[in-house]
């Protein structure tokens, strides 16, 4: 981790006040500023602390199960008839998604800072489960905020969190999804900042969260880079990852940013189509504004009110996006595309049937685009898709869509 932090250019973006170009920053009430400054100091300190990093590495190896494999999807590759499709298997992590990379890191940070209570927001419930898991292990109290609509959609994960000893608070405000859960978690944090650590689950929010969550997830890209070199003797030609807030995508992308020859594609939820309003594609169809403490692309109406979004996947159903993605889009380093509900569902089935891997519905968006991309590329090229999570949590949603009752 130490060596790796030096290898990437994580020192150059964001700047000291958390800006990625014109994006990011800290648009929060003054009541939160000191907490963010304390967190920023702690994170910068422990990122250079050998004992902390050694413990993090141990936990990532023995608790999370890292490194996650780089898997060659031979059947799917044959089906698409183009580039070699390889998956970074974050779905094999403990708790089933990339989210645990971040919560293990922030959990250790919380403990190092002497906090007794952790809180988290969650959409799909993956981050909530990953937070509750870490809290259970570290013996901390854990409260997870979750939009009421997501509590319904992701009932299995709600039960998992409760089994792990977390309290799940159903948020009834606004669109009753991820953005409202995030608001509520922030409110809790301002009120209980003395003993509480807020484990934010994606690369959105005020500085230092976008940079810190990226650094904890960048293990994905560092491993993928090394694995690709070891296995294929070269870097992949294209990286593909789904983008909700953007943590699994930035985790994969970040260590490749300086490798200009590697194309990067972030896949947003196009919901029922980008032409209408029922999607969650802030980079593809939004504009620059300020949400959740950060200047970034977002979905709002002409009065600047944040819009309700839609995606079949709760984890992508978010009207903003991490500021580093906004920056990567504007400098042209990464491209952002949309995959709609139907395409994602098709990809969900395609991967399940061809490889015996059932992806999360969030992940299915990346799979769908990755398949299209592979079909257009030469057979000597490599398309690397981040398999950000497994689909167990989504079987109820899939059954519902297909009219199946248990």
């Amino acid at each position: 981790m130490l060596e790796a932090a030096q290898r990437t250019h994580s020192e150059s973006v964001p700047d000291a006040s958390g800006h990625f170009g014109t994006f990011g920053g800290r648009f929060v009430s003054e009541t939160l500023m000191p907490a963010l400054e304390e967190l920023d100091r702690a994170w910068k300190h422990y990122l250079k602390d050998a004992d902390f990093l050694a413990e993090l590495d141990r936990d990532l190896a023995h608790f999370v199960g890292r490194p996650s494999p780089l898997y060659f999807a031979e059947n799917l590759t044959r089906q698409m008839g183009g580039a070699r499709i390889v998956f970074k298997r974050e779905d094999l992590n403990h708790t089933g998604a990339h989210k645990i990379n971040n919560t293990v890191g922030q959990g250790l940070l919380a403990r190092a800072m002497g906090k007794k209570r952790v809180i988290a927001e969650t959409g799909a419930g993956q981050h909530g489960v990953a937070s509750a898991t870490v809290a259970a292990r570290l013996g901390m109290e854990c409260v997870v905020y979750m939009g009421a609509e997501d509590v319904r959609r992701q009932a299995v994960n709600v039960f998992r969190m409760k089994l792990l000893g977390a309290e799940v608070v159903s948020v009834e405000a606004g669109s009753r999804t991820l953005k409202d859960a995030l608001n509520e978690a922030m409110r809790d944090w301002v009120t209980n900042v003395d003993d509480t650590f807020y484990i934010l689950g994606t690369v959105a929010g005020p500085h230092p969260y976008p940079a810190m969550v990226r650094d904890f997830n960048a293990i994905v890209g560092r491993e993928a880079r090394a694995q690709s070199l070891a296995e294929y003797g070269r870097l992949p030609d294209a990286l593909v990852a789904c983008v909700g807030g953007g943590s699994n995508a930035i985790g994969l992308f970040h260590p490749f940013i300086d490798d200009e020859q590697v194309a990067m594609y972030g896949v947003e939820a196009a919901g029922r189509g980008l032409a209408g309003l029922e999607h969650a594609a802030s980079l593809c169809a939004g504009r620059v504004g300020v949400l959740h403490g950060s200047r970034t692309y977002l979905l709002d109406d002409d009065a600047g009110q944040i819009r309700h979004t839609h995606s079949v996947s709760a984890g992508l159903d978010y009207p903003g996006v991490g500021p580093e993605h906004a920056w990567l889009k504007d400098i042209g380093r990464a491209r952002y595309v949309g995959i709609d509900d139907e395409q994602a569902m098709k990809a969900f089935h395609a991967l399940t049937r061809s490889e015996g891997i059932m992806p999360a519905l969030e992940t299915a968006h990346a799979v769908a685009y990755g398949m299209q991309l592979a079909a257009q590329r030469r057979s000597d090229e490599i398309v690397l898709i981040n398999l950000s999570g497994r689909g167990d949590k989504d079987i109820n949603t899939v059954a519902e869509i297909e009219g199946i009752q248990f």
Partner: protein
Amino acid sequence: MNRIDQRFRQLARRGRTALVPYITAGHPHPEVTVDVLHGAVEAGADLVELGMPFSDVMADGPVIQNACAQALQHGTDLDRVLEMVRRFRERDADTPLILMGYTNPIERRGVERFAAESAEAGVDALLVVDCPADEAEDLKAALQQRGLHQIFLVAPTTTDHRLQRMAGLAGGFVYYVSIKGVTGSSSLDLSSLAPAVKRVRAVTELPVAVGFGIREPEQAAAVARVADAVVIGSALVDRLDRCANVEEAVAVTREYLGRVRGAMDAATETGPAAVEA
């Protein structure tokens, strides 16, 4: 001269602590807002704060959150808020009015246009809850050009360094947030207030207002002894929430703020701060 500066000068001469009620524009209904503002002034408010509703009020508690949601449901957009200000000004040319809101709707309008339209409508200052001094330079310039002040929040946890920085940008008054938490929390700590206000006074000549978490007239009275202004927000909004029509909303506002005013006046006539002021 900005109405806020004028008003605080008058108040200082009279030895009176300002009462500053906050209401959310358009809550519980757009029809009541202007009348409630007038009612507040008649009950003894010296400045008024008008909240511009936003969909994601991260720094506000359930009461104001709910007020914003209702106001938005009734279509209270920025144009309607400014129209309310214009109508308020038809009958009240002197009471300073502060708009309070969040960054995104302001930027969507464009900060320069926002400043121009606000000034034209009769607004005196702007408080952007999610725009701390660190991110405020563009907005500050636009407001300054139109003679509008930018009000900043200071928290119990604000460091000296941040306090200095904010003092350089602030105008009108400094708004000290008396609790750790969102608006409407109930953990106002009176014992720590005097030293905190003193700390703010050390870096700025501006009047110091105290708000967040003040509900009871007695609390307002205690705060009035150490601060230049007392802000009442959620407690008033909560009362308005239960009002069915304009008459009721005005009556509730007058009754409640009248009691708060009375308690503040009683406290400052006899309290130690009267001497200081």
